[in-house]
């Protein structure tokens, strides 16, 4: 088979170009289908990170993804944020974190 492919000039490593077309279309349509500009997406990303950073430790080396996808006419905001652990309360003496004031920094 390999020999045949070689004889007829087929390169096995070559990705079928339609797969590239499909993948590129998927990506471009996600952006086309939403009115969310890259700037707005970046703002969302930063603010989401800022809010949850108060409670959890984010692994920033792992790559944080905030995307908007669309299926059948509905948009979905997806955030994929790798965590290292929970953030302890500021004062180490306190064992159980107090519930009040959890939302303020």
């Amino acid at each position, binding site marked *: 088979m390999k020999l045949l492919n070689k004889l007829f000039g087929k390169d096995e490593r070559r990705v*079928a*170009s*339609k*797969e590239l*077309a*499909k993948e*590129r*279309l*998927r990506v*471009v*349509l996600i952006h*086309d*289908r939403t009115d969310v500009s890259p700037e707005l997406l970046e703002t969302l990303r930063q603010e989401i990170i800022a809010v949850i950073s108060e409670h959890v430790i984010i692994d920033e080396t792992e790559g944080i993804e905030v995307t908007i996808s669309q*299926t*059948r*006419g509905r948009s979905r905001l997806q955030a994929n944020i790798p965590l290292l652990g929970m953030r302890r309360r500021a004062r180490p003496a306190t064992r159980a974190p107090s519930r009040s004031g959890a939302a303020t920094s």
Partner: protein
Amino acid sequence: MPARTITITSGKGGVGKTTLTANLAVALASRGQRVIAIDADIGLRNLDVVMGLENRIVYDLVDVVEGTCRLRQAMIRDKRMESLYLLPAAQKRDKTAVTPDDMRALIDQLHRDFDFILVDSPAGIEQGFQNAIAGVSEVIIVTTPEVSAVRDADRIIGLVEAAEKDPPRLVINRIKPAMVKQGDMLSTEDVIEVLAINLLGIVPDDEEIIVSTNRGAPAAYDGTSPAGRAFHNIARRVMGENVPFLDLDSKPGMFNRILSWFRSG
């Protein structure tokens, strides 16, 4: 009974809107339907030449809208068919000569005389497109299996949904089965998956389209070429028949070819 009103559109230019409109009109008329095809591409009219009726134009759509002539005077009957008419676009005007309200009023006047009113839309998403979808309830979107055409089709689907028409249906034009087979062309399934839309038809790439357009006789008149057959299948599906999609998988073998001589269509 009111006519079925269908706009044929695509977003991207050059994917085969006018060819589909002409052939769908011919195929529907050949099945006994009363059909009028309206060219809504004002300033760049082409439906007349594709249908082979360019020498018979006296008045056009803009003349009707402006009251220069009566609607009947601008309608050209295709003498090769029992009940097929063309309403040509104006060539020396532009899309601002007509408004969506004008189009709605025009289509209203045609309802009682026809079974099908087909509107050939210009490319693009601006006023010409908005004119073309005004007054119709159904939309057929044409694309080819190329990234640019599929992307534009997606944009049009969004606009058609926003305009609260019936869910649009898709025709994939100029499929090359051999390229699909070797993985170098998006397949019907790929396009449908990406666009999440109902499929109305697939039309193979066929040199006969160029020949028939040269002659001014749409391929559906003859109906024996691969594309001509595909257009007839589309017409049958539009009329509500359940017609299986053409099997475009590679060229027929010798056995199938001989078999097909006995099967005709």
